[in-house]
C-alpha cells in the first residue's frame, strides 16, 4: 500500500501557485484540484540551499543534508590543477550521503523515484524503481533501475517515447538564454508532452507496483518559468496584451491545467490512506539585470581572459558556460553562471599560479569589499546585496568544494560569465530566476487543514518523508520532520524518533578502496555539450 506520495515541482513558487488556485477574471480556475488540496492541507515556504539551484537543492531534499555535507554544489564540477581547470558533470556517485530512496529500501520499504536529478547510476542494491531525471534519451534505458523496468515501461505504456520524456541538453540550455517570441512559445509547448510522459510512467508504476513510497518530480514548472515569467507573474502581466502575450499566457495556463490533472490522477490512485507531499527545490522571481561578473573581476584586476585567436573553436569556447581564462594570471573568477560564486585561486605550492595561502583572508576581504561596492549604473543601487563565505554557509566535509564566496544579487538572478561589457546591463525584458523560497505542502490523513505555517528548511523534507513512511529520522540528518505538518493525534500516536546514522553506500566504499593513492580526478568530458574543444 502506498503510504506516502511525494510530488516534486521543480522551481514551484506560491507566486504562481496562488494565482493558479483562484478564480481569475477571464481565465477561471486553472488548478481546481490543487486548490482543494491546499484547502484541506498545510503549507509552508521552503528555504532552499544558499545557492538555490537544482542539483544541490534536490540533493538536499533527497539526503536531509546541506551541500557542505552531501558534496553537490552545481551541475558542473571543476578540478583546478593550477595550470588548467578540468570540468566534469556531477552524477549520483558524487553524492556523499545516503539518499532517502536507499534508506527506505534498506528499511524494507518499496520505493519509486522518478525524474529526480543525480539518481543515476542508481544504488545497486536498491529495492525499487528509479527512472532518473536529467539523463539524455539515448542513455535512459541503461540508467533505469532495475534495467528491466525500462522494457516494461516501453512495452506496456501506450505512446511511451523516451525522446519526449528525457533531458535534451540543447533545449535545457535555452532556459538561461534570451529567446525570441516564437521560440519562447515553442519552449513552453515542448514541456507539455514531456510532463505527460512522466505522468504516464508515474501512473504505470503507482498502479502496477504500488510502492510504499512513490515519488515523482515534474520539472516543467522550472523550465517554463525561466522563459515565460512575464506571463506567469501577475505583477508583470500587461494591461493591454498583444496577441503573442495572450498566446503565451494561454500556453502557460495549459501547462498548469495539465499538471493539475496529473496531480489529481496520482493522488486518487495513491488512495485516501496516503499522505501526499509537495516540495520545490527553490522558488522563482523576476531577474531584471545581467551581472557579467568575470568582466567586473577583470576590470578590478582579478582575472585575465584567455587569448582568442578568432578561430571557430576559440569563439565557441568563449561563448560557452564554462569560464575561459588565462589561468596563470587569474586569482579570482566565477566558473559557471549557475554557481553564482567566486573561486579564489590559492597556489598549491610556491611558483604555482594564485595567491599565497597566508594572504587568503586579506585577499578575500578586499574582494568582498570590491563586490559589495558594485553599483547599478542607472539606479545607483547595489548589484550584489550579500556575499556568503563558505565556512558560514557550507559547513561540512565537502566545504572546500564550495565557491569561496557565493553572491546574492539584488534581483536573485544568476550571473553571466561572458566576456562582454558593460559589467551590469538591464535586461530588455524580465526573465524568471530562482528565488530562495520554494513550496512545501502536505495533505491527507494525519495532516491538519492548517493553511500556511512557518518557514521550513529544505533539509526538513527528507525527515518529513521518512516520518510519514513510518521510519525514524537518521541522527546525522541536518533537518527535522516538520511537526506542524501533522495533527496532534498523529504526533501523539507516533512521535517522530531519531534513528541510527545513515550508511555509506557499497559502491562508494569500493570506489574509495580502489582509488587509494590516485591523486587526479577523472576527467570525463570530451567536447562536453559542444562547449569544449
Amino acid at each position, binding site marked *: 500500500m502506498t503510504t506516502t506520495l511525494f510530488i516534486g515541482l521543480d522551481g514551484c513558487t506560491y507566486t504562481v501557485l496562488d494565482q493558479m488556485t483562484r478564480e481569475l477574471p477571464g481565465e477561471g480556475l486553472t488548478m481546481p484540484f490543487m486548490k482543494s488540496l491546499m484547502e484541506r492541507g498545510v503549507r509552508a515556504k521552503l528555504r532552499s540551499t544558499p545557492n538555490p539551484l537544482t542539483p544541490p537543492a534536490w540533493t538536499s531534499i533527497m539526503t536531509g543534508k546541506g551541500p557542505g555535507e552531501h558534496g553537490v554544489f552545481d551541475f558542473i564540477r571543476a578540478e583546478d590543477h593550477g595550470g*588548467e581547470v*578540468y570540468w*566534469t*558533470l556531477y*552524477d549520483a*556517485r558524487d553524492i556523499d550521503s545516503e539518499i532517502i530512496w536507499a534508506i527506505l529500501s534498506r528499511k524494507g520499504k518499496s520505493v519509486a523515484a522518478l525524474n529526480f536529478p543525480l539518481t543515476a*547510476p542508481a544504488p545497486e542494491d536498491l529495492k525499487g524503481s528509479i527512472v532518473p531525471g536529467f539523463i*539524455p534519451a*539515448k*542513455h535512459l*534505458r*541503461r*540508467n533505469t533501475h532495475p534495467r528491466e523496468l525500462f522494457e516494461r515501461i516501453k512495452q506496456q505504456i501506450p505512446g511511451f517515447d523516451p525522446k519526449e520524456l528525457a533531458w535534451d*541538453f540543447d533545449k535545457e540550455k535555452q532556459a538561461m538564454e534570451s529567446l525570441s517570441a516564437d521560440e519562447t512559445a515553442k519552449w513552453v509547448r515542448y514541456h507539455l508532452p514531456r510532463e505527460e510522459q512522466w505522468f504516464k510512467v508515474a501512473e504505470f508504476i503507482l498502479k502496477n507496483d504500488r510502492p510504499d513510497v512513490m515519488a515523482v518530480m515534474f520539472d516543467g514548472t522550472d523550465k517554463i518559468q525561466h522563459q515565460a515569467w512575464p506571463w506567469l507573474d501577475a505583477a508583470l502581466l500587461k494591461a493591454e496584451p498583444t496577441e503573442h502575450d495572450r498566446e503565451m499566457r494561454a500556453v502557460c495556463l495549459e501547462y498548469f491545467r495539465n499538471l493539475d490533472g496529473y496531480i489529481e490522477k496520482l493522488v486518487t490512485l495513491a488512495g485516501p490512506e496516503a499522505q501526499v507531499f509537495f516540495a520545490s527545490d527553490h522558488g522563482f522571481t523576476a531577474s531584471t539585470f545581467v551581472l557579467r561578473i568575470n568582466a567586473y573581476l577583470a576590470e578590478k584586476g582579478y582575472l585575465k581572459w584567455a587569448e582568442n585567436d578568432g578561430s571557430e573553436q576559440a569563439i565557441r569556447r568563449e561563448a560557452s558556460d564554462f569560464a575561459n581564462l588565462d589561468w596563470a594570471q587569474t586569482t579570482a573568477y566565477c566558473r559557471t553562471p549557475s554557481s553564482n560564486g567566486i573561486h579564489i585561486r590559492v597556489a598549491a605550492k610556491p611558483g604555482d599560479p594564485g595567491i599565497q595561502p597566508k594572504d587568503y583572508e586579506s585577499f578575500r576581504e578586499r574582494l568582498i569589499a570590491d563586490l559589495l561596492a558594485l553599483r547599478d549604473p542607472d539606479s545607483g543601487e547595489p548589484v550584489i546585496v550579500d556575499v556568503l563565505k563558505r565556512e558560514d554557509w557550507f559547513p561540512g566535509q565537502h566545504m572546500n568544494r564550495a565557491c569561496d564566496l557565493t553572491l546574492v544579487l539584488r534581483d536573485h538572478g544568476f550571473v553571466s560569465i561572458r566576456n562582454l561589457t558593460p559589467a551590469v546591463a538591464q535586461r530588455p525584458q524580465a526573465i524568471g530566476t530562482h528565488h530562495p523560497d520554494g513550496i512545501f505542502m502536505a495533505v491527507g490523513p494525519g495532516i491538519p487543514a492548517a493553511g500556511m505555517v512557518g518557514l521550513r528548511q529544505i533539509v526538513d523534507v527528507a525527515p518529513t518523508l521518512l516520518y510519514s513512511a513510518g521510519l525514524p529520522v537518521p541522527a546525522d540528518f541536518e533537518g527535522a520532520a516538520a511537526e506542524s505538518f501533522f495533527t496532534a493525534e498523529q504526533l501523539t500516536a507516533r512521535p517522530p524518533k531519531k534513528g541510527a546514522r545513515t550508511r555509506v553506500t557499497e559502491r562508494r566504499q*569500493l*570506489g574509495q578502496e*580502489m*582509488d587509494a593513492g*590516485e591523486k*587526479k580526478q*577523472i*576527467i*570525463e*568530458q*570530451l*567536447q*562536453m*555539450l*559542444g562547449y*569544449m*574543444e
Partner: protein
Amino acid sequence: MPLSSDDYTQKLITLLEDFTQDWDHDYRGAMQRDTRLFADLAFESIDIIQLVVAIQEEVLRAKAPFEKLLMREGRYVDDLSIGQIADFLAVQAAG
C-alpha cells in the same frame, strides 16, 4: 593477472553493443578494435560522459584517470577507437 588489451576490447564491444542498441546510427558491421566512437557509432560529446561512467561501473569497477586518454597536449581528442580505449584500460590494469 591483469586483463590484456584484447580482453578489454571484447568487454568494450559487449558494452558498446548494449550501449548503442537502440541508437539511430548507420553503422551496420560488427564492432572491432578500429571502430570509432564519433565517426562510426554517432557518439556525441555527452555520450562520452555516459560511456566513461559505464566503463568505470561495469568494466573496471573503479575509477581511472581518463584525462590521459581524452586529452592530448592540452586539447581534447577528436575521436577514439575501441582499441585505443582497450589499450588505455590494459595499461591502467597493469599499472
